[in-house]
């Protein structure tokens, strides 16, 4: 198969099509992720979430756009910055929050924590704490799809940091060798913890990373939910048609630290503020909706209120859920009699 890799800016610009209902639903999904993450950050500060907690704030358009292009039955798998993916998949905010706080009603009964949650129902395959390890698993999901002939496509998400793991390239090779229905979504938020892409990558245009394996790659504005959706649609269609994998590099940005204990000395406050002010994915959608008169300020306020209530309910639920009993340590290690 001939390879082509394309940068977003070189593509012919035709404004992506959308409509009122669609855009409001993307807005709602992105806002839910943001409000949820803001609240998780607060709870962490209050000591109610312990350990590791990687917030998705700033990157909401990536997962919401991808999800919009997925069909029932398609799978998602990602790394440790996973709260947004779970919410976008339709997993219950209350179950996610209860897991973050280590409670029995969390998706992994409190034993997984922020980085380790799953849902068979929503075809969400985790939540993985080891950088890059999920990429090969994503190809395995694709292999099974092909073998079972179930017409499903798997989306394997990973970051710019994970893109340097050797197993990613072992996976690329197999995925294209066997034409697996998998889309590799690189969420390039420009910093692998405290190390910028430039300091860690010989080739910083990550969409080209599949080239030598014959995998087509595209760079996408990851702050634009509609462009994300359309690019993902193209990649999913390609995979579903039996043409093999594709690499999508979503150029995005995280506003918060890598985790909650990040001193953030590797970038300036101005840099963060500039992205927030100029490229915020949620503001961008809000502007379109207002301009097109699809929603007014009261409508926005109502939506915000509704989402805040959902998040508040999730927090309340989590706080009232008990911790797992100590015997739970031994459940689900192996199949029990």
């Amino acid at each position, binding site marked *: 198969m001939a390879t082509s890799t394309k940068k977003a800016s070189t593509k012919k610009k035709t404004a992506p099509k959308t409509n009122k209902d669609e855009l409001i639903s993307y807005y709602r999904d992105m806002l839910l992720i943001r409000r949820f993450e803001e609240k998780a950050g607060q709870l962490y500060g209050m000591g109610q979430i312990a*350990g590791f907690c990687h917030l998705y704030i700033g990157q909401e358009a990536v997962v919401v756009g991808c999800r919009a292009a997925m069909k029932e039955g398609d799978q998602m798998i990602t790394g440790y910055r996973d709260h947004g993916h779970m919410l976008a998949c339709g997993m219950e905010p209350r179950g996610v929050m209860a897991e973050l706080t280590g409670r029995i009603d969390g998706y992994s009964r409190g034993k997984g924590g922020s980085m380790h949650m799953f849902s068979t129902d929503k075809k969400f395959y985790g939540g993985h704490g080891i950088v890059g390890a999920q990429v090969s698993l994503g190809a395995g999901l694709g292999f099974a799809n092909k073998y079972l002939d179930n017409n499903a496509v798997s989306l394997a998400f990973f970051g710019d940091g994970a893109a340097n793991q050797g197993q990613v390239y072992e996976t690329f090779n197999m995925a294209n060798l066997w034409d697996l229905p998998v889309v590799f979504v690189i969420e390039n938020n420009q910093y692998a913890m405290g190390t910028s892409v430039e300091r860690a990558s010989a080739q910083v245009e990550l969409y080209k990373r599949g080239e030598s394996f014959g995998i087509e790659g595209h760079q996408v504005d990851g702050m634009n939910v509609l462009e994300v959706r359309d690019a993902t649609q193209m990649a999913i269609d390609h995979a579903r048609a039996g043409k093999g994998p594709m690499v999508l590099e979503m150029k995005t940005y995280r506003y918060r630290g890598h985790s909650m204990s990040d001193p953030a000395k590797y970038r300036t406050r101005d840099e963060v503020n500039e992205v927030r002010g100029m490229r915020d994915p949620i503001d961008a959608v809000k502007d379109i909706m207002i301009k097109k008169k699809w929603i007014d300020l009261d409508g926005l306020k109502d939506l915000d209120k509704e989402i805040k209530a959902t998040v508040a309910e999730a927090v309340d639920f989590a706080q009232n859920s008990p911790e797992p009993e100590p015997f739970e340590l031994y459940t689900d290690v192996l199949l029990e009699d």
Partner: protein
Amino acid sequence: MPQMNMIEAIRDALDVKMGQDKDVLVFGEDVGYFGGVFRCTAGLQEKHGLHRCFDTPISEGGIVGIAVGMAANGLRPVAEIQFADYIYPGYDQIASEAARLRYRSNGDFTAPLTIRTPVGGGIYGGTTHSQSPESLFTHIAGLKTVIPSNPYDAKGLLIQAIEDNDPVLFLEPKRLYNGPFDGDPHKPAVSWAKHELGDVPAGHYTVPFESARKVASGDDLTILCYGTMVWVAETSAKMMGVDADILDLRSLLPLDIDAIAESVKRTGRCLILHEATRTSGFGAELAAQVAEACFYSLEVPIFRVTGWDTPYPHAQEWAYFPGQRRVCGGIRTIMESQ
């Protein structure tokens, strides 16, 4: 004498060696510009230069493999793996290359490299940020595995590791970075500043491998431990009012079996502690060696207190951690045995 916590002591060891030997290089994920997620390498890049303390991509297999090549070609690399839980992609390079180069090349080539990595729980890290994989490494012939329990030993053992002519895995109990931790998470944190083992001499000194540290002397029972469990052992023995002979092993391979045998032959009772999972843990090796060396002196069966045979949980971390209650229970079991 300078007061240091374990982070500062490790940084000082690296600084001393980098100052003495231009072939010593320090690298790993977020190690250079950022100074390491636990700050163990903060300031080293500014002081010794970008070419000697630098960031690597997130590529553990590559980090270890490159370190082996560097070491075989005359350098003394000190690689950091950010969490021991991330080391597995590099395991092949450690087990099959670093540890076997001398043997395979008839002694012509060696891999004098050090791999530093934080281990253990106590920070709510869950399954992928809390593990203690030491027995996966002590099982490898050709590799040394050491684990300090305090700032003084951390600096001395790390300098010893860097100067060693064979590969050394240097495990850092992350819960001890800022202070001794006796297993009670509800007590206010204690800092190293108030502890005599936080007195760390400036400049060069070493702590030899194969030299267990006597933490407490007693004749009632022997407690074998290392890393965080040293502090749990000390407190638990006091709580139980027993005269325990407590040995901080410091180096697991090579192992100071002479000190262990001397102690167990005298006390006739042996308790073994570790945070790692129980089955095939390092405690099993210790129990076997104690049985081999001291069988006829043992008055009661050897007893182990360890982590459970489960993944490290996010919730109920302290139910997993072998804290004072379990260690006291172990002491009671051994002392009440006839």
